[in-house]
């Protein structure tokens, strides 16, 4: 990790720790009170605990033009994104995905083209949902696309766990962290008033709700795929499924939530202050959220288009989007959820849960 980024976070944390007015906002400030000085693993841990609610910035009497020049949301965000890249294997891939929002777009186009080619190759069964691309072909492509990125991410998380001196995880630690993540406790401002984001120093719940819609939408879509997998292999029930089936109900509701949530997140981001985020990441953040939006929107369109001619093109775009989303998991903003979960668990351990 780059020393200047760490040093700047340490400098700012020393000022914060002598003040502590923000203690009630979030877990990161509560964690701060355990320390007198901040070593690298502590800074890395705190950076992933920080949810970028920005409340501490707007409440701070030492922000620029004050000579202490505090901007803790940005300082911790800078450490945070570096901590992902330095722990996940293939940092060049991360650099690539973080370099521009266009990377995701180009990836989707390239993969779509690939799928088109594959669809032209004549190992096709013609009587089912899979008449465009054979089911076995899909499985052949998507198994590694699912599994390899998750393996890479897992290695990254293991390395991170070593950096922050993580211990073996208990059920109660996991329960508490999951509750925190499920409610986005650390975006509630400490008194339930929400966070500072799109309205400067006014609190708002908008980002929390938009993130909830996105996260739960994604999980519902994931559940839809999982249920369909079980139905396919376990129950020998082959797609397409009727509307009143679990995969469709989960998928359509998840898709709607994901589309609405990501749209709102993008809108809020246009209103938010770029100087309170990790430097140089606004573009790739847009790219990541747009990719999620693309996947959910093409999925919904696929459903509405039914058996029309357009649906085959839409299926290709949708599948390409999913493939790119999964390939980019360990290298994109997607990792934030996993590292933050790790930080929440580690924080539970450090608090003696």
């Amino acid at each position, binding site marked *: 990790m780059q020393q200047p980024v760490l040093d700047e976070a340490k400098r700012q944390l*020393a*000022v914060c*720790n*002598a*003040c*502590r*007015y*923000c*203690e*009630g*906002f979030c877990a990161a400030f509560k964690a701060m*009170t355990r320390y*007198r*000085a901040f070593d690298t693993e502590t800074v890395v841990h705190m950076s992933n605990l920080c949810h970028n609610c920005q*409340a*501490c910035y*707007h*409440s*701070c*009497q*030492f*922000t*620029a*033009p*004050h*000579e*202490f020049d505090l901007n803790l949301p940005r300082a911790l965000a800078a450490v945070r994104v570096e901590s992902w890249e330095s722990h996940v294997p293939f940092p060049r891939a991360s650099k690539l995905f973080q370099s521009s929002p266009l990377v995701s777009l180009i990836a989707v186009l390239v993969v779509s083209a690939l799928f088109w080619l594959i669809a032209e190759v004549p190992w096709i069964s013609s009587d089912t949902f899979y008449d465009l691309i054979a089911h076995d072909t899909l499985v052949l492509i998507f198994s590694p696309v699912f599994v390899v990125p998750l393996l890479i991410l897992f290695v990254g998380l293991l390395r991170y766990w070593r950096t922050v001196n993580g211990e073996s995880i208990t059920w109660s630690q996991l329960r508490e962290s999951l509750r925190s993540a499920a409610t986005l406790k650390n975006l509630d*401002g*400490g*008194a339930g*008033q929400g966070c500072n984001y799109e309205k400067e*120093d*006014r609190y708002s719940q908008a980002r929390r709700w938009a993130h909830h819609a996105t996260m739960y939408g994604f999980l519902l879509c994931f559940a839809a795929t999982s249920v369909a997998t079980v139905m396919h292999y376990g129950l020998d029930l082959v797609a397409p499924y009727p509307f009143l089936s679990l995969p469709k109900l989960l998928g359509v509701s998840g898709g709607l939530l994901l589309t609405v949530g990501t749209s709102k997140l993008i809108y809020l981001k246009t209103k938010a202050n770029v100087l309170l985020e990790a430097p140089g990441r606004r573009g790739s953040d847009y790219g990541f959220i747009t990719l999620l939006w693309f996947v959910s929107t093409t999925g919904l369109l696929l459903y509405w288009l039914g058996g029309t001619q357009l649906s085959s093109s839409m299926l290709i775009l949708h599948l390409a989007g999913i493939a790119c989303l999964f390939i980019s998991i360990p290298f994109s903003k997607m990792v934030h959820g996993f590292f933050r979960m790790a930080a929440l668990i580690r924080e539970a351990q450090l608090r003696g849960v």
Partner: protein
Amino acid sequence: MKVELPEITPDTALIAVGEGQFDFDVIVVGGGNAALCAAIRAAEAGASVAIFERAPKEYRGGNSRHTRNFRCMHGSPKGVLTDSYSEDEFYEDLLKVTKGNTDEELARLTIRESEACYEWMLEQGCYFQESLSGTLSLSRTNAFFLGGGKALVNAYYNRLESLGVAVFYQATVLDVVIRDREFDGVLVDLDGTQKYIRGRCVILASGGFEADKDWLASAWGDAARNFLIRGTPYNTGEILKGVLAGGADQVGDPTQCHAVAIDGRAPEYDGGIVTRVDCVPFSIVVNEEGRRFYDEGEDVWPKRYAIWGRLVAKQPNQVAYAIIDSKSKDLFMPTVFSATVTESLDDMAQQLGLPEDEFLATVQNFNAACQDGDFFPTELDGLRTIGLTPQKTNWARPIDTPPFYGYELRPGVTFTYLGFRVGHDAKVSFGGVPSKNVWAAGEIMAGSILGEGYLAGFGMTIGTVFGRLAGEGAGGYATTSA
């Protein structure tokens, strides 16, 4: 709300806005807690209100942006406040710190009114938090603002925006025109242009004069030039001085200021809370001649930090050095600047620029006077020196275990006491007769109640209570005289 003002001078004011015409019903001078509470109340009463805040938006809020809580009476647990805190107990606490230098009627009014402030502040968009780590002793008496004073100030400015109050930043009020106890208007410098603005009444809430070192020096001598100012550089007291010269009744005198010992490397202004150095009770404190000058262990730090500003101010060049050894390094709040760390006391003397022989002799004599006994950092442990002058009456442990840690201390001025004498309605009086339409709130009148000493969070209590009173008075006056 953005308001365009006509460019005029005091002489042409009446012509510009016309006899009996006003730019605003209520003019508030200042932009800190008291000013904001006053503006909110006046606007709620239906008055048109303008606030003139001298600071730019980033520094708005005066010293309130550095505060963290307010002291609040309550009969039973209330929100973040535990247990109860009665009027009499609150008043007793005030008597102890002011040594009776208060006005009982005004003090009890402030205390009683503080209880209703809690809910009112919540209604304005303020949030409270549990008392901060290391401040458990205040969890019963003081309600902490979530995010501190700047968050409170933000909430109030947002409230003002919803109420349609006109807020002018970088607006220096140059003169408050009062004739025969009656306010007429203010001359304001707005972004380099002078404008005369008329109002039906005025609320003066522009703080003390601690940032005017000339004024401090006139009372303290040149020593004041070495003082650090813990809060806003904008509290230079011109309004206070001008209106006092115009015959307003005064409380306190200019030698009175609240000063604590802070880190000598703090910025000259606005260092705020983080520049505190809490290691004094576990240290020996020497002046630049290497000699001790006061009992570092007289009482627990929250009860003694406020006398150390004056103690250091009386030392040569207004500087002192607190030295601890590694036994004590984790016993106090972390400091914002790191200590001077050395493996030997000779090195410490050298690095701090102390006369080596004198300093080493001081430590040697101190160490020799320390006695065996049990050390309890959080209570008066009676671990005292014997045969030493000045003695150290608690937590006296030899400074003998390297590494050693040294902190430079200087006086840091928090606020001044000199101000307007106000009545129970927050009105300023002239020659004992209350003004018709001039109110005051906050530090500019706090000396009416807090004659000396300090009680944590009481400044914000006075500001909130009298800000509200002034706002209600001015709002009522403006809307009935319209």
